[in-house]
């Protein structure tokens, strides 16, 4: 029961490995779970997914079906796509290309389309406002993982959705999912020292890093994103810091290969704030090609990650 897994958290972000990974199915399952338990829910998204092709043909329906009483955030111009009866609660002062983000309360069941702010501090402010309107739990549709980040300040818990739409190779999908899950659950590294405010990327990354690491080499603290380019610059050095610290797992914009090479050289990663990975959902069906064997995929992912794994298409998810 997916909903029970998120019971300890007030704010939960849903992140997907790719499109059609089953994120919306998981979201709808959580909405039904909240209805059954009488929990008042609020929904928002990090930004908004790109225009869907079926919008042009006019047959498109927003895929999220809410229960009366649910709060949701969306841009003013998207309200015409929402068919739940609603009450306008607030205008947030956050503007999107589709107008200002409004907070609404669904007065009936119905389809809604979400479009929330994309900056972490705006998400935090929105979440707090929704809680002020009585929401007991806030679910954040994280759009595509990595392109829209779900930082720990914004969401206490993360649900990671993965599925056959990620690619034809089930083994690779499972390994990459496990890698992302690992990034989301890196251990906390304790308080940070005062950073010198040194900026990289103005000259040769290797020289700059070597310069910065001279004489020390115990730990590297990275205030922004830690990228593949930085990883390869580190790997070219003879001596290498034992630890790399980042703000949180979403700042590691790193391929699995780079990560593993660094790990092989004895580098471990630490985060200042940790995400709580609540569950991984698996969707064996692909929007693009051959499905995976449901049982095999489920078992494979389960063997790679340390958190509960839920098959979004199985009936158990609904109750």
């Amino acid at each position, binding site marked *: 029961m997916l909903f029970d897994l998120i019971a300890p958290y007030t704010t939960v972000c849903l992140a997907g490995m790719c499109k059609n990974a089953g994120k919306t199915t998981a979201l709808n399952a959580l909405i039904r779970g909240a*209805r059954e338990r009488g929990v008042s829910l609020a929904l928002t998204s990090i930004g908004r997914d790109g225009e869907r092709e079926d919008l042009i043909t006019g047959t498109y329906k927003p895929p999220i079906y809410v229960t009366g009483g649910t709060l949701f955030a969306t841009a003013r111009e998207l309200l015409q796509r929402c068919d739940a*009866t609603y009450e306008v609660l607030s*205008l947030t002062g956050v503007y999107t290309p589709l107008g200002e983000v409004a907070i609404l309360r669904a007065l*009936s069941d*119905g389809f809604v389309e979400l479009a929330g702010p994309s900056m972490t501090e705006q998400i935090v402010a929105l979440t707090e406002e929704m809680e002020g309107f009585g929401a007991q739990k806030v679910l954040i549709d994280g759009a595509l993982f990595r392109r829209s980040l779900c930082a720990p300040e914004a969401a206490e818990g993360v649900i990671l959705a993965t599925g056959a739409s990620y690619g034809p190779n089930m083994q690779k999908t499972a390994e990459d999912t496990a890698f992302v899950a690992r990034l989301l659950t890196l251990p906390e590294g304790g308080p940070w020292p005062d950073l010198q405010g040194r900026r990289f990327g103005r000259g040769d990354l290797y020289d700059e890093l070597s310069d910065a690491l001279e004489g020390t080499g115990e730990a590297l603290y990275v205030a922004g994103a830690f990228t593949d380019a930085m990883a390869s610059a580190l790997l070219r050095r003879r001596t290498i810091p034992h630890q790399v610290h980042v703000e949180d797992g979403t700042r590691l914009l790193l391929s699995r290969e780079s990560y593993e090479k660094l790990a092989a050289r004895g580098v471990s990663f630490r985060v200042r704030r940790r995400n709580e990975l609540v569950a991984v959902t698996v969707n064996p069906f692909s929007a693009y090609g051959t499905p995976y064997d449901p049982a095999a995929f489920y078992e494979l992912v389960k063997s790679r990650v340390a958190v509960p794994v839920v098959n979004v298409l199985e009936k158990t998810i609904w109750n």
Partner: protein
Amino acid sequence: MELTHKQKEDIGLAFVLDRLSPLSPLGREKKRALEPYAREERGALERELENLDRAVALGDHPALNRFRQGLMQLRDIRATADRLNERSLDQVELFELKRYLLLLSELAAAFRILEAQARWEGLSLRDVSQALAVLDPEGERNPTFSLRASWSEELAAVRAEKAGIEKRIAQTSGEEREGLLTRRTGIVAREAAAEQALCEDLTRRLRPWQPAIAESLEALGRLDLLFAKAALVRELGGRKPTLTEKELSFVNMVHPAVADRLRRQGARFTPLSLSLSPGAAVLTGANMGGKSVCLKTLALNIYLTHCGLFPFAQRAAVPFFDQLCLIRGEGEDGREGLSSFGGELMAADGAARAVREGFCLVLFDEFARGTNPAEAQRFQQGAFSYFDRSGSVCLFVTHYEAVAARARRRFLTRGIRDMDLAEGRRRIEAGADKLAVLRSCMDYGIEEVTAADLPQRALAVAELLGVEGELLSAIRAEYRAEYRPEYRPEYIPGED
């Protein structure tokens, strides 16, 4: 009265405007549009200054604090208010309007209390409660908005039908659920039509109040700016000036930006007092004695007054000027291809035309200082004669006695006192900071004098600044060589 961007910068206007902080977007827009009143608006300027005085007198009245807190929640809904005349508002727009009308009723209540005490002229804020009643017929004063089923029979019927099918959808799954969802689509379309009809009806009933709503938004912008001005007076000081016909006078005028800088350096701004009448007067005095600061202070305070802000002075009497003309060599805006001198000439040209068309304040800071002294003197004398006859109020900062001799009124920055000079020399010998010593020896106050002869203090300044010994001796030698009866140095360093 217009100043160029460079001139505004030059007189230190930004320091004041940066501290003028309206609380709503409407007030901020009024601030951006702040400009000197035109002659035909003189009555409005007088009213604004009087209203500001009464706002300042309110102090931190609880109703004023309530009003200003309300302003922080005010949003610019003018576009929505305008749309009332154009088309049917949607639910979010109706929400905006309702929330505004609720806020307005609170603001209007606070305003009534303030108004009873302040008795402002020409300022009003009307509650538009009849419009609020359209959007909140139950009088719940709830700050959210929805189209209530109870407002339309048609809507009530379709919503009941919708609720019924949604209940069944929640209890089924699979194909049956899909079928119900398809049926629901038809009901949703009818609900949308009923909602649209209700929106149109509400808009139609709100439309007669559109002018009153627009007026209240305008009034709130004005009040926001007025109260921001009052808050500025409380922060930086300032007194209500009296508007006169021709006479200008300031008692203990200060320049807040210069005063602030001095305060941070542990020094104090010496307040300036002067009065001017139509015709030209001169201001003279030692180098580094505060002549330019005096001119800037005067210009800033005149400009502020004309914008409906209080000047920074204990007492101010200000005539209405059509134009403020500043002619400053280095302060000119360096129009393309013009030297500093060329820039000054263009500015003087502008002033010469302006005084023919209106009543102006013309301030010359060492006109033509960049050219050779013999010619500069002729330029200054000529300009002095022209502007003295112009009927406008003019002040010439000059070092030329010949110019000072022509003036009926002369002001002198007091400069270095002999007594302080000896003390200053001792302190510099003891290793004190030269600029600080110079500043402490300087009396930056101004006074009106009758004699046209000018104190010769450049050498004393040079000495206090510690100009290299041989260079100073060489300059001093020139003083001895050129000693002429009309050239009376009161003090030649090294000769006392």
